[in-house]
Each structure stands twice: as C-alpha cells, then as structure tokens.
C-alpha cells in the first residue's frame, strides 16, 4: 500500500440492517461496479473531496443549471442540488433493466392504442371497463386515432426503486410530460469537468447520445418524410419549473423552442410558427404542456398556453405530437397495477421488471385490507404526480390516517396502496463524511420507429436524513448515474 498523506473518507450511519446499499455490500466493501470509484475517492481524501464539491457548486451556478421555484416573492431560479458521489450499477444488471423498460413501453403503447380503438383488452375481460370509465386521462376525442407506428407515448420516464432484498421494482410510469433528462445530461458534464481522471481509468458507459436519439424519435413522426422536418419544443413558458429543460433540449436538438402564442393552425389544418419572414410549417411538436392546456378548442377553453386547433391538425395527420394527446391514460396509479397483465396480454411475456405489489381500493376485499393496514401502507391517488396527495402510513398521524380512510371510502377507484418499501441508499456527502441517503432511478425510454433507453438515467436522492422523498420540488437532489462495465458475463 502507498504511503498516504490524506485521510481516507469516513462512513457514518453504516451499516443499515435490512436496507440495500447501491455501492456497498453488507460487509461495507464496495460492490464490483463501485470499486474503482471507491479506490479513487479514498485516494483523494476527505479534504480534496470537499474542495471538489465546492468547485461543483460553483460550476452549477456558472453553468446556470437551475429549476424554478414558485414563491410569493416572484419566481426564482434555484441551483440544482447535486451530490458528487455517483450512483453505480453493473452493466450486467442494467442490461436486464434496459430490456425490461423497452418491454414495458412497447406493451403500454399497444395498450393505449387498443383503448382508443377496438378495446380488445376490455372485451377479453383483462382490463375492467369501470377502471377505464373512471380514468381522468382518457380523452374521448382521441377515439379512433392511430398515430404513426401505433405509438402514443414516445417519451416515458419510468421510476425504479430497489427494496431491501435487492429486487428492483417499477414504481410508476410517467407518460405525460416526464422531466429530468436534462439534469441527467448535465450531471455527467459536471462529473467529467470535476473528475476527468476517473473517466479515463474506468469503464463508465456514456449517456450523451440522448438528444440525438430524441431528435430522431421525434423526426420520425413528421408527416412530410421527404424534407428535413421542422421540430419544435412547446413550452408553457419561463415560469414553468422545467423551463430550463425545455430550453436545454431545444438547444441540444437544434429544434425551435416555442410558446403556444408562436403557433397558429390555419384553415388547411397545418400548424405554422410565426417567424420574421412569415408563417413556416411545423411538422412535429414535442409538447411539454399537459393535455388539459394543449388546445383550448378541444380541452380547457381557458388555456392561454395552448394552440387553438392543434388537435384538429393532429387528427388530420398534418402534424406529429409527442407524447400523443391522450397517452396519459396509462399514466394512472390504478392502471399501473394492471401492467403485468397488460404485458402478458399483448406480448405473451412475463414482465422482466416487476411491479411493486399493490392493492386496488376499488376491489372490496383489497380495500378492507388497505383500510385495516393503513399504518403500514403507502396510499396513492390515481392521477397525481410529484409526490402530492399521498399518504405514507407509518409516518402519518392517527388523524391523517382517519381522513385518508374517508377519502378512500368516498372514491375507491381513485386509490391504490403499496407496502412501504425499504428503499435502497447510496453513500452521499454530508460535511466531509459519507452517509446513506435514499434514492430512486428514472431512466427515459423513447419509442417511435425505434426503441431506446438511456444508459442509466436520472438518480434522484433524498438529501435529508431518513427522507424518502426525492422530488426536486420537495427538497430532493440528484447524482450522476454510472453504468459500469465490470467485465462480468
């Protein structure tokens, strides 16, 4: 062993019985995919690591990586909270997950297309008509449509978590306007800037082809296949919390960032953008606006963000929209519980990545189980995102649980419940030490005439001790995600 002038970095709050750590085994030795990283970190020592963290914070400010926080005092750009210790995973494990993600999105797209057309899955008794009837995101006006390639959800953010026994589960499928991919890309840029040595010496798979893959996925939706398509990113505007990402992706794809007021649908049902040399036709709209606000003619008439006539243009086949209007029907926590059957039904395969075991409150027996075990379960409403409106049983008060029980009884279709998982952790810098913090993983999956999944994805980490909430809107941060080729077969 070399003589060291630096102190190797100290772990605190380890081991944690019953909880799987992504980087460290039960004996607190690094797992194979994390070995190079740990050698390196220990060689650097605590002092140097703290210095690099300060450098990374400065770089985040300088690169202007921000998200917007709404407040009374006006909207402010807040720096993106980032932990410099990456989350690692072996390529062998990732390859299986990659296959599972593609399998899942393929099945979900077949499912959405079926729901808006023949509804075989309902007639065959696999998917209950009453769940469909209660779906807030089923868009009647999309009935009879088959978008190009039969694909509705072109961009999917799939949230994965790992339980205490090491099993990776799908926690939810985000099929409406999933965000976060720009942070995945920026996290890698930051790490390369800060630790260039590491990327030379270890087999970390690259992530940066996402913008090109996204562009190709979108371009394939163009109704005018002979020309270079005009692709736009439709943003609600600068006050949206993900505006940074909208601008970032437009820039990286060489697409045009537009707001609703920049677009107009003419009598020929084509979509045009207003330019300094007049109207110019738009072929594909990557919309980052919810269905509700997309087209005041078709959905909410009070929407100031959308484009009147956009649905008309889409139905006439004059423009591609990603994700297609109505794709959100499969982004529903109750529909989620049926995904294993959906995969089986359309693909005749078993799911490669399992669902978290779930109880459906619309079923009387399962509902009784949920009501009797509220102190042990997590209860989620069907159509909320960002961690809003859910009950974390073990942490809730008696009063909160009673209120929630009433909510469930009043509208059972709207709720499902899951056991509280022992969500995995990874070492995260706290002061000059490393402490375990809970995390999840959101890979992004693309489908049009191709299928693609990011290599890894966005790792979100709950920076507060013991917290399970990883959403950036609620105090979460993120880490770079390394898929490491350890040479295992």
């Amino acid at each position: 062993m070399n003589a060291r002038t630096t102190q190797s970095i100290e772990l605190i709050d380890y081991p944690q019985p019953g909880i799987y750590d992504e980087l460290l085994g039960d004996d607190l030795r690094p797992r194979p995919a994390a070995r190079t990283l740990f050698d390196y970190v220990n060689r650097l020592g605590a002092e140097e690591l703290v210095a690099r963290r300060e450098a990374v914070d400065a770089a985040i400010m300088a690169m202007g990586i921000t998200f917007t926080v709404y407040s009374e005092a006006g909207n402010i750009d807040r720096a993106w909270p980032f932990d410099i210790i990456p989350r690692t995973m072996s390529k062998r494990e990732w390859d299986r997950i990659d296959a599972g993600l593609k399998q899942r999105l393929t099945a979900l797209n077949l499912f959405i297309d079926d729901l808006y057309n023949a509804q075989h899955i309902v007639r065959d008794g696999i998917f209950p008509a009453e769940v469909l009837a209660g779906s807030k995101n089923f868009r009647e006006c999309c009935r009879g449509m088959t978008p190009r390639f039969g694909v509705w959800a072109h961009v999917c953010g799939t949230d994965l978590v790992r339980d205490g026994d090491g099993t990776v589960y799908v926690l939810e499928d985000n099929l409406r306007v999933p965000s976060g991919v720009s942070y995945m890309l920026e996290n890698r840029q930051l790490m390369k800037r800060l630790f260039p040595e590491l990327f030379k010496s270890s087999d970390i798979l690259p992530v940066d082809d996402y913008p090109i893959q996204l562009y190709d996925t979108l371009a394939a939706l163009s109704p005018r296949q002979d020309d270079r398509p005009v692709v736009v990113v439709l943003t609600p505007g600068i006050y949206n919390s993900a505006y940074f990402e909208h601008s970032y992706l437009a820039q990286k794809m060489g697409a045009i960032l537009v707001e609703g007021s920049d677009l107009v649908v003419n009598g020929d049902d084509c979509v045009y953008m207003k330019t300094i040399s007049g109207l110019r036709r738009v072929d594909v709209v990557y919309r980052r606006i919810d269905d509700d606000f997309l087209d005041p003619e078709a959905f909410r008439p009070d929407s100031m963000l959308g484009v009147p006539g956009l649905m008309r243009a889409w139905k006439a086949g004059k423009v591609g929209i990603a994700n297609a209007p109505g794709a959100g029907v499969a982004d529903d926590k109750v529909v989620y519980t049926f995904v294993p059957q959906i995969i089986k039904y359309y693909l005749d395969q078993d799911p490669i990545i399992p669902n978290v075991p779930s109880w459906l409150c619309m079923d009387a027996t399962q509902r009784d189980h949920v009501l009797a075990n509220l102190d042990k379960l997590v209860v989620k409403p069907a159509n909320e995102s960002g961690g809003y409106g859910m009950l974390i049983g073990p942490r809730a008060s008696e009063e909160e649980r009673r209120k929630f029980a009433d909510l469930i009884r009043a509208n059972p279709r709207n709720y499902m419940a899951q056991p509280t998982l022992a969500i995995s952790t990874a070492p995260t810098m706290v002061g000059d030490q490393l402490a375990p913090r809970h995390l999840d993983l959101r890979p992004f999956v693309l489908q049009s005439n191709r299928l693609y999944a990011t290599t890894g994805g966005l790792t979100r980490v709950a920076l507060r001790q013991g917290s399970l909430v990883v959403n950036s809107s609620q105090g979460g941060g993120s880490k770079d995600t390394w898929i490491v080729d350890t040479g295992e077969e």
Partner: protein
Amino acid sequence: MLSRVAENLYWVGRYLERAENTARLINSTTQVLLDLPVNASFGWDVLIKVAGLDAEFGERYPQADEDSIIRFLIVDEDNPGSIISSIHNARENTRTVREVLPMELWERVNSLYLYIRENGARALIGRGPRDDVLRAVIGQRESIVGLLTGSMSRDVAYQFIKLGRNMERADMTTRIVDVNSAVHLPADTALAALTSERAWISTLNALSAYQMYRNHVGVHVRSHDVAEFLLKDPHFPRTVKHCLAEIEGCLSTLPEHVDAMKQVRKAWRRLDGMNLEGLTSPVLHEYLDQVQADIGAIHAVVARQYFHLHQRHNGSGEDQ
C-alpha cells in the same frame, strides 16, 4: 426566426442601451452643472424632459429637484424608463431567448441586474457614490457588448440585438445633446463662450467622445462643431449617422427589408440636409426632435415587418 424571439432580442438590445445611456445622461448633466458659473441658470427638470418622461414624473413627484429626479431615473421601479426598470426588462427578455445566445450572456445580464438592485440606493447618497454606481453600470454593460462582439455568430439573433442597440443609441445621443439646449447662457459674451464650451465638453465626455473629437475635429469645442460631430460624423460609434449606417447594415441581412431600408434612407437624407452652422438652441432642439421622430418611424416599420405576426395574434394591437 420566431417573431417573438426577434422582438425580445431587439428589446434586449434597446433596454441595455437605454440603461447605459441613461447613466451617461445623468453623468453629463451632473458635469454640466458642476462647470456652470454661478450666474448661469440650469434646471434638473431638463433631464426628465429630454428623456421624454415628464408626464410619468409629474404624476408621482411633487418637486423636480435633484434628489427626486435621480431617484426617479435610477431606482424607481415604477418608472418604465429608469435604469433599474430597463435592466430588469432586459433581463426578463434575455431569459426567454437564452437558447439563441452565448451561454454567458444570461449570467452577465443577471449580474448587472443584481448589481443595480443591490447598489442603486448608494447612488442616492451623493454625487460621488452616484458617479461610482453609474460608471459601474456603464462598464458592465460595455462588457456585455464585448461578450456579444467576441463570442456570438453574426446570425439573425445577433442582427436583432444590434438593431435594437443602434436604434436606442441614436435616439439617446440626440437626447444627451439636447441637454445643452437647456443651458441659459450668461449675458457676458466672454463668460457665455466659456460656459458654452464647458457644457459641450461635458456632453462629449458623457458620450466618451472627447478624445475622438479632438483627434478628428480639433481642440476648439464650439457648439455647432460638436453638434455636427455627434449627429453627422460617420466614424464615431455613438453618432446618429454611424448608428443609421449600422441599422442599415443589420437590415440588409434580414429578409423583406425594403420598406425599413427606405425609412432609414429618409432619415439619412434629412440628417444630411440639416444646416448646423451658427444654429441656436431652439433650432437645435427642433432638429433633434425631428431626428427622434425619424428613428421612431424606422421602429414602426421594423415592428410591422418583423414582430407584426406575433403581435397581431396576441391581440396586443399597435406598435409601441
């Protein structure tokens, strides 16, 4: 390029230029005042008049004294023409068009805004600190132009910022020159000549033009020579003529520019036709008003040609 983006870029150029030139205008006025003999009269309210803001000011301030006027022009967020409002507007416009600009631009504009927000109050303490703050605003703004010059492709986005900058600059140069028409010279001829010379030196200094004037015109500072230089010199970058040439250059790279170019040439011909020899203050003032009207007419055509679609569909109606 999207009409909305073009319009925002144009206003980024205008607002930043306006902030810098308002700082120059205040500095020039302060200088003129310091150099005046005791028996020459001069009113601070001229600043409000030349800035075209008398109505806004009168509504909210009872007295046109130095303190009120300085507050109104530097830190009053309810005055759309104040330095802080101009920088704030430039910042909000920059925010929406970040993807067509060099990455550092947003940071620079943002830090200029943070600077004036934090230091604006210091400018109200006295003339010394005020001078420091205004110089800092001018300096930071110059570094922003430097950044654009040094690291932005000469694409359409660049042309719209440059167009806005030169439109505003030409307009503000006429206003800074106009400050002189408010100086009432003393009866004594020798003293009047001296006073007039000092006032015009202040104007040249405010536009960072004194050395170039000396190099290219001469050491004697006479009113018609300075007016001739600041309006018609083709080489100094803050003169009306130079700005018109820059505007023409920008327009020539844009599509469908025939109408706007016609308007520029009209302004150009009128400028050439102005006889500045032996002119009096009231005539100069009239001339300057005419130049401002011509620049306004160019703006109207530009807005109709390039921002029109965007405005029409938003129902925001007439050009500003």
